[in-house]
């Protein structure tokens, strides 16, 4: 990318598809053939990846660390679940409504969130998440409270594909949505708007000085990230046909940060790779050792920090150019 002087050319160059990206997406189809009995896991990985990409937009690109991102995920999940419970089980529209509800809440809370930084930001997002969790717990007449929301009945996807026990429909659906989300996020981060976010991340005070309103842009990206998180949540509600308070929990927000940092922040695919690595490792380890698996997860996290300080993708990125130079 060195040598590209014109910013528009730079962005256009970034927009082009690299062969490795194409290969990556083709590889995402492999579970259908290679491990067809792992599709329920694969679809939950895809959903977590959507959620992680949404966090990456605010954390990796705009520098807003949130410890309450599950609020939007859970809101999307409950919205989609409640619509289906009320009798409208069409998946695609449910997905959009779930995303819209989360986006609206994201827009409203965005006014508070962009005012603060550092620890206060982390704690305020955490507070918003915990408050919403308590609201959902308290409103058990609506949400089913601790027992979870039951009676979520989905219609077949596009009128013809039932959500089956093997998870074929669920994975195909989740993967298609993940693809669409990454596509949209890709355009976004490689647009002038995306560049301005990175500029805000690097130096927030300077941006208003050169005529770019920092807070308004941060609110916009926060709303977009909340919408995507809501879509992820709605997808989880639809593919599992169940919503619980766990969708809103602090643990989910915290785990998401872990996933994103493992994969690598600010790299678009970091969340996707992190979701795959973390959830596959978790599934394998807890299958082998149900009681002490988190010991090994803990070691894995420490190993990532010590040996791959920029996450897995960061590690790969330092390897790849070297290889190409050598050849």
């Amino acid at each position, binding site marked *: 990318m060195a040598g590209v002087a014109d910013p528009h050319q730079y962005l256009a160059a970034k927009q082009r598809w690299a062969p490795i990206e194409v290969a990556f997406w083709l590889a995402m189809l492999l579970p259908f053939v290679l491990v067809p009995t792992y599709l329920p896991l694969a679809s939950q990985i895809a959903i977590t990846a959507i959620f992680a990409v949404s966090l990456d937009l605010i*954390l990796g690109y705009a520098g807003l660390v949130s410890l309450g991102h599950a609020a939007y995920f859970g809101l999307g999940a409950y919205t989609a679940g409640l619509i289906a419970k009320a009798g409208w089980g069409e998946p695609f529209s449910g997905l959009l409504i779930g995303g819209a509800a989360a986006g609206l809440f994201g827009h409203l809370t965005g006014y508070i969130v962009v005012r603060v930084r550092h620890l206060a930001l982390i704690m305020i997002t955490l507070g918003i998440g915990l408050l919403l969790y308590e609201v959902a717990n308290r409103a058990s007449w609506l949400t089913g409270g601790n027992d979870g929301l039951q009676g979520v009945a989905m219609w077949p996807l596009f009128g013809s594909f039932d959500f089956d026990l093997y998870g074929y429909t669920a994975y195909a659906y989740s993967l298609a949505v993940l693809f669409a989300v990454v596509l949209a996020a890709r355009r976004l981060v490689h647009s002038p708007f995306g560049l301005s976010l990175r500029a805000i991340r690097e130096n927030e005070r300077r941006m208003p000085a050169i005529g770019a309103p920092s807070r308004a842009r941060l609110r916009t990206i926060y709303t977009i990230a909340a919408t995507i998180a809501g879509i992820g949540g709605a997808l989880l509600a639809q593919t599992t046909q169940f919503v619980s308070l766990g969708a809103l929990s602090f643990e989910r927000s915290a785990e998401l940060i872990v996933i994103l940092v493992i994969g690598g922040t600010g790299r678009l695919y970091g969340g996707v790779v992190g979701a795959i690595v973390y959830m596959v490792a978790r599934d394998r380890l807890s299958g082998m050792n149900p009681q002490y698996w988190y010991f090994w997860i803990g070691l*894995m996290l420490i190993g990532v920090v010590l040996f791959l300080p920029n996450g897995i993708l960061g590690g790969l990125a330092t390897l790849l150019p070297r290889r190409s130079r050598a050849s």
Partner: protein
Amino acid sequence: MIAPAVGVLFDGFAYGMLLFLLSVGLSVTLGMMNFVNLAHGSFAMVGAYVAVSLMGLGWPFFATLPCAFLVAGVISVGFERTLFRRVYRASDLQQVLLTIGLAFISVAAAAWFYGTMQQPVRLPVYLRTYATFMGINFSIYRLFLIAVALAVTGLLVGALDYTRFGAQVRAAVDNQRMAQGLGVDVDTVFAITFALGSGLAGLGGALAIEIVGLDPNFTFTYLIYVLIVVAVGGLGSIRGSLLAAILLGVSDAAGKYYVPTLGAFLIYLVMVSLLLWRPSGLFGRR
């Protein structure tokens, strides 16, 4: 109706003191080194298990407290020297990942050595009763807790304000690089502070068992509360942590007593509004 309220506020105050002991170490280490240590709760858990183990061997409760402090401090400094110092220059998120990893390992280790069950604690009888003053019951144990916390605060503030070491710590919290430039051995000062902070967490852990119990998940039970105290109090401020912990303990107790339907909300609402008012915390400088 005044008497029961006083009793409840007293309990909330004592609870705040407990939170203070658990969080003050994290506040100082965060303020000085910008090191985000989410494994702080693990050192509290170390103290708690040390106390339980020694009491199991027949030690009196009071004798276990210094040991909880010492063991937690020594173990923490071991990790600080070998592991944590390698990531001081890494980003916050890397530090979060490393210390969460360590917290996971500590939970697994506790479950492996002590089992997943509740650890029973039996205090001496004189600590388990309550004193009645003007018709209000004051738990002896909570009085003891308050006394310990106030003594610790007095020692800490005194040490910080009037000793050479305290001056070095303050210098390092204010401006680490400048302190280094002026010849303060920030590295060593930090190691000692880290050990002290973790030791206090260990002491707090040992004192907490009587009120909240102990199982391997203890590491995470207090994490949110400790973070709230640190954020509201302001990084690196002992007075701030103390005030935030008291505010939290008392408003939590008062909220539960007067408006129980708001019970769980109140503490978070208080935190969010305080942080919007003062984003760097009550006594925060940055």
